[in-house]
Each structure stands twice: as structure tokens, then as C-alpha cells.
């Protein structure tokens, strides 16, 4: 256990020393300030927003859920940036730079080393995601006096999505160079986002083909499905036309959701980690 703590501490110290950490912190501060401004202006204008006669839309819920969905996307994006840059070179990158060899020859075990690096990165990213998500919730509450029906579960799902990206990035770091791994993980992330948007469009168009493609992508890339499920949860108290309009938008929610995808995501995470450990055990350094 002390070896895990030592390596995790080593990884954590490396993480906070990197410029990317400072960049993410600055970008997060800018994002939260802009998010606060947007909330302030939109909620202040809420009284002037009048839906067409006969259209029953709960404007506060619509605006709150839409803006919080936007914040969740921003949080996921920044969390993924942090996760990828903390882990993209853990094996191949560090081996090429000569940082890994002195550690690997110690009586720690390669699996302990990789798991410790995973835990270190996961701890940093989970704390980051939860803090930013919590700040976004607090801003929405303070400026718009609106909170979603469920506040905890969406945050946990966002954090879970980032943890899956960490596992994929670690797996990639065993077999790919740092640059190739970074590109590969960001492409996967982008593919997931596109698949999520496709699902929304498919649902709006009532296209079975597009919905099917989006569903397959959700199971193949469950970090996207968790994020979408989080969006679904924050708008779960929006009913009627308000709920329908929210589901038509980009932050509308999931078509693959619930405990099925959560359990699948946990299994997916375990398999990705197991593959990373097996590949690292066989890797010549």
C-alpha cells in the first residue's frame, strides 16, 4: 500500500507541476466567470421571455437545465483535457524520456505502478470535475434560484466519464507514443460527442438508423453515455413541452441510460484497466 501511495504521490506531484494543470485551472476560472455572467444575464431577462400564447413552457427550468447542461459539457471537456494530459505519456512517453526505467526496476511491480498512476490521475480529475460541477450548480442556484431534481448523480456520472477516459488513455500509453495517444483519445472523445448529437438528431427526426448508430456508439464509448445520462437526470423534472424542447436540444439527455449503462461502464473501466495492465506486463522498455 505504501508503494501505491508513493507512486500516486509521485504522479500527483508531477501533475500539479505540469503547465497543463495551470492552463486548465486558468481556463476553468475563465469558464466559471463566463458561466456566471451568462446565468446572470439570462435569468435577469427571464421575465421578458414570453413564449407564444398557448405554449406552456417553464422558462426557468428550461434555461436552468440548458445552461447547466452547457456547464456539464464544459466540465467534461476540461476534465478530459486534464485526464489526457496527465496520462498520455505514462508508459511509452516516460520510458522514452528515461523517467520510467528507474522506477520499474524497483520491487514495486508493474501492475502496482500503473494502478497507482491511474489512482493518482483519477483522484486529481474526480476532485476537479466535482468541484467545477459543484461550482456550476452553485452559480445556477445563486443567479437563477433553480436546481435540478437530482444534483449528486449527474456529478458522479461526469466524474465516472472522465475516469473511463483516464483508463483508455493509460491503455493507449502502453502501446502508443504520447502524441499518437493524445490524438487517439481526443478522437475517441470527439467521436463520442458526435454520436451523442447524432442520437439527439435521430430522435428529433425519428430516424431509427441514426438512433441505432448512436446507441451502438454509446455502448462502445460509455463515457459519452454517462455524460448523456447526467444530462437526462438534470432535466428529469422537466415535463410536458419544456421537457420535449430540452430533449430536442444538444443537452437533451440520453437514449441509453439508467443502471444498465452504469454497470456496463464499470465493467468497461475494469476491462480497459485489465488490458492496460496485461499489455504493460508484456511491454519491453
Amino acid at each position, binding site marked *: 500500500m505504501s*508503494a501505491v501511495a508513493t507512486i500516486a504521490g509521485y504522479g500527483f506531484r*508531477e501533475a500539479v507541476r505540469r503547465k497543463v494543470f495551470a492552463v486548465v485551472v486558468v481556463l476553468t476560472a475563465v469558464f466559471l466567470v463566463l458561466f456566471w455572467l451568462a446565468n446572470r444575464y439570462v435569468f435577469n431577462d427571464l421575465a421578458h421571455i414570453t413564449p407564444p400564447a398557448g405554449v406552456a413552457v417553464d422558462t426557468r427550468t428550461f434555461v436552468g437545465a440548458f445552461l447547466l447542461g452547457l456547464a456539464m459539457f464544459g466540465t467534461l471537456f476540461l476534465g478530459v483535457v486534464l485526464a489526457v494530459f496527465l496520462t498520455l505519456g505514462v508508459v511509452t512517453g516516460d520510458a522514452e524520456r528515461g*523517467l520510467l*526505467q528507474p522506477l520499474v*526496476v*524497483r520491487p514495486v511491480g508493474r501492475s502496482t505502478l500503473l494502478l497507482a498512476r491511474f489512482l493518482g490521475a483519477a483522484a486529481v480529475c474526480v476532485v476537479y470535475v466535482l468541484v467545477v460541477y459543484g461550482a456550476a450548480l452553485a452559480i445556477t442556484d445563486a443567479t437563477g434560484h433553480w436546481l435540478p431534481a437530482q444534483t449528486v448523480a449527474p456529478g458522479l456520472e461526469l466524474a465516472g466519464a472522465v475516469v473511463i477516459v483516464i483508463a483508455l488513455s493509460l491503455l493507449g500509453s502502453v502501446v502508443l507514443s504520447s502524441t499518437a495517444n493524445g490524438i487517439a483519445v481526443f478522437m475517441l472523445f470527439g467521436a463520442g460527442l458526435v454520436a451523442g448529437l447524432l442520437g439527439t438528431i435521430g430522435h428529433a427526426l425519428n430516424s431509427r438508423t441514426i438512433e441505432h448508430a448512436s446507441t451502438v456508439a454509446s455502448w462502445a464509448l460509455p463515457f459519452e453515455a454517462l455524460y448523456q445520462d447526467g444530462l437526462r437526470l438534470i432535466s428529469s423534472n422537466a415535463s410536458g413541452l419544456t421537457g420535449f424542447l430540452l430533449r430536442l436540444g444538444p443537452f437533451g439527455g440520453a437514449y441509453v441510460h439508467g443502471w444498465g449503462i452504469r454497470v456496463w461502464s464499470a465493467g468497461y473501466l475494469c476491462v480497459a484497466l485489465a488490458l492496460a495492465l496485461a499489455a504493460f506486463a508484456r511491454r*519491453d522498455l
Partner: protein
Amino acid sequence: MAHALAVHGLEKRYGSVEALKGVDLSVEEGELVGLLGPNGAGKSTLVKIAVGLVRATRGEAEVAGARAGSRAARAKLGYLAELFRFPGWYTADEVLALHQRLARSSGGAEERRRLLELVALEEASERRVDGMSKGMQQRLGVAQALVGSPRVLVLDEPTSALDPAGRRVVRVLLEDLRNRGVSVLLNSHLLSEIELVCDRVAILRAGEVVAAGSPAELSRPRGVELETDEGTRTIAGATRHDAPRLVAEAVAAGRRVYGVRVLTSTLEETYLEAVGDEVS
């Protein structure tokens, strides 16, 4: 009794390239063995298999009786890689403290102070790695390899970045380690260094051991050089056993003998003979 380090029939293949072709080599307790060979001969591959960084295609490698790469083997091993780096924001003391924790060494601050003193870095214990010269980092690497008092030390080009004074520090350190019974496998391009400190030498070429033995065993007689009042002449093929007879014959012939020298090949000549005209 188990060898400190032993490899038997070691083979390693990278795709179509055979890096090692059945190498046998051992390092006994308290022995200092040098590994020589041109670039691409398989020296680093052999070293990396011994420390568990690379898996052999065939054959066995053991460290103090434990399979190379196993936790038990790594617990008895100290290693300095040819290309290594420590995080730039760590101080020398922090680097050693990190490796103490990983090696489960209970030496504490006293061990760190002693190791830094051994490599002449006692004044730099609080200096950050990115503020150190390449030579200082290499000496810190040697100190790192000694954390936890390993029984077997594997050093891959430990003096490549050192100036003559730094090389001397490492050479004295190696001799001290041998006196304390530590076994050392030293991979180096510096033949003079190997010749000075190693008990035995193995020369690799194209993945095979082409010569092995003590520096004295590897040296070949080159004749006897006799300096008389007629000048200096070399009697090719003569050995040190012939020297008294040659002196006696010269004196009997009325020559004045000013000096006699038995000529043997240097390790460099032996090395060049062993590896042929292969250029590193």
C-alpha cells in the same frame, strides 16, 4: 551457491533482428564484470533482460537465484540505465528518498547523506535536478542505484557523461563496492576503465560472447623487447618465460643490456581482434 547474476542460453529477437543469440554469462559474488562490444552487439539488451525491463525470447536470467524481473530479483538489484532522467523539480535528496520508499530501504537520512557523499554530491543535496549538470545527474543516478545496499549492481554506461574527475569518483566507488562484496555488471564503452577495475570481461559481437576472461587472460603475448648497446629490438613470439634466456644470451654475446620488456596486447587490441573491423 547461486551466482550473483547469471544468464544461460539467452536469446532475444526483435522482429527479424536477433539481438542475442544464446548468451551465457555469470557474475559471481563480489565480482566486477565488464561488458564490452560495439553498438548493436546486444549489451544493453542483455542488461535490460537482467534487470527485468525486457523479456527474453528464450533462455534464463537469474539474479541471486531469483528469476530476473521477479520482485525477489528486483529487491536485490540496483540499476543505472544508460538513458535515464529524474523529475527536474525533485532535489537530489528527494530523488533518493523516493527510491528509498520504493526499495523499502530503512536507511533514512543517514543513508541519503552517505550516498551523496560517495558520489561527491554532498553539497548538492538540496539542489533540484534541473539545476544540475549532466555529470552531476549521472552521479546522482549512481547514488540512486545504491539505495537499499543492493547485492547486485548493474550499471549501463555509468561514466558516459562524466569528466575525468567524475570517472575517477565512480572508479574508486566501484573498487570500494567490490571490496564490500557487491557484485557489479558494468556495461561501458571505455576500455581503459574496464581494464582498470574489472575482474573479468565479456566481449559481445552480434549477440554472441566472442571473448571472455580476466583482462590478463585476454591479453596475448606480443614478444619481448630487449634494449642493448646495439639498440632496441623485439623478439616476436617470445614470452616472459623466454626473457631470462634472452638476456643471458645477449650478455654472453658481449652486449650490454639496459632493459627488457615483456610485450602483451592491451584490452583495446584484444577487443579490436574480437570484434573485427566492426565500427560502433
